[in-house]
């Protein structure tokens, strides 16, 4: 995980649903300061919120004594967001949701978070680093070909 530097902001959130909005709104503020277009800011907000919810629910198992870490780092024309938790990380990539299967009860209506993150940011990865925990790393670029 990258070191905090002068261009980094770190938050620690309790594992309580609703607090993901603190990270979401902080990320949006930073992205706006960097000059990201409104549609990219909205993409980032959803991706950060979903990563925090996953960290609370699956990583920290909703144990409110455990915190979710959020590190926002400005690197050149890119914004990197790492969301850390104490879990083992996802065991496998999440397939794209199949709405037909959901409508027919063959797939859980939930379980779209990782898919949305991957679809909305320019880079997304999940890293397991026991015993410290795991993290989701997302990057959006000011210029899409960066």
């Amino acid at each position, binding site marked *: 995980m990258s070191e905090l530097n002068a261009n980094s902001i770190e938050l620690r959130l309790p594992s309580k649903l609703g607090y993901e909005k603190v990270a979401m709104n902080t990320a949006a503020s930073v992205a706006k300061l960097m000059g990201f277009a409104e549609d990219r800011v*909205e993409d980032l907000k959803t991706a950060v919120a979903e990563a925090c919810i996953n960290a609370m629910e699956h990583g920290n198992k909703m144990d409110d004594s455990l915190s979710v870490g959020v590190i926002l780092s400005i690197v050149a024309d890119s914004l990197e967001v790492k969301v850390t938790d104490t879990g083992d990380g996802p065991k496998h990539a999440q397939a794209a949701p199949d*709405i037909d299967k959901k409508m027919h009860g063959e797939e859980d*209506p939930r*379980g779209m*978070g990782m898919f949305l993150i991957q679809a909305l940011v320019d880079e997304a990865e999940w890293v397991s680093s026991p015993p410290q925990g795991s993290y989701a790393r997302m990057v959006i670029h000011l210029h899409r070909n960066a």
Partner: protein
Amino acid sequence: MQDQGTRVKVEEVSCAAGSPITVLRFTGDITSASQTVVTGTYEGLPETVKRIILDFSKVEYLNSSGIALIIQMMIAASKKDQKIVTFGLTPHFQKVFTMVGITKYTSLHPDEKAACAAFV
């Protein structure tokens, strides 16, 4: 942290030919915490209701758990032969709904007039 809560107002509008259309007007956040309100409101609709509009124009925050609640409503609606159309989603959430495929089972409209017209 207190979220914005979820409120659902049920109205009947007569903006198209035929029987009135039921509008569910959502306000606030739609998240996993909204299940009782969203599901309870839908299940409280009379069996005679066949045409439903979902109004998202005053929704402040919607996440994947909230989208899952909407999908669950659509699953129930399909079993009751109800048609659901929506309006008032931001461009971002119109994109998200399209990404997850919900648009196969509902249509997205910019405003209530257009949503009503979808029933004609």
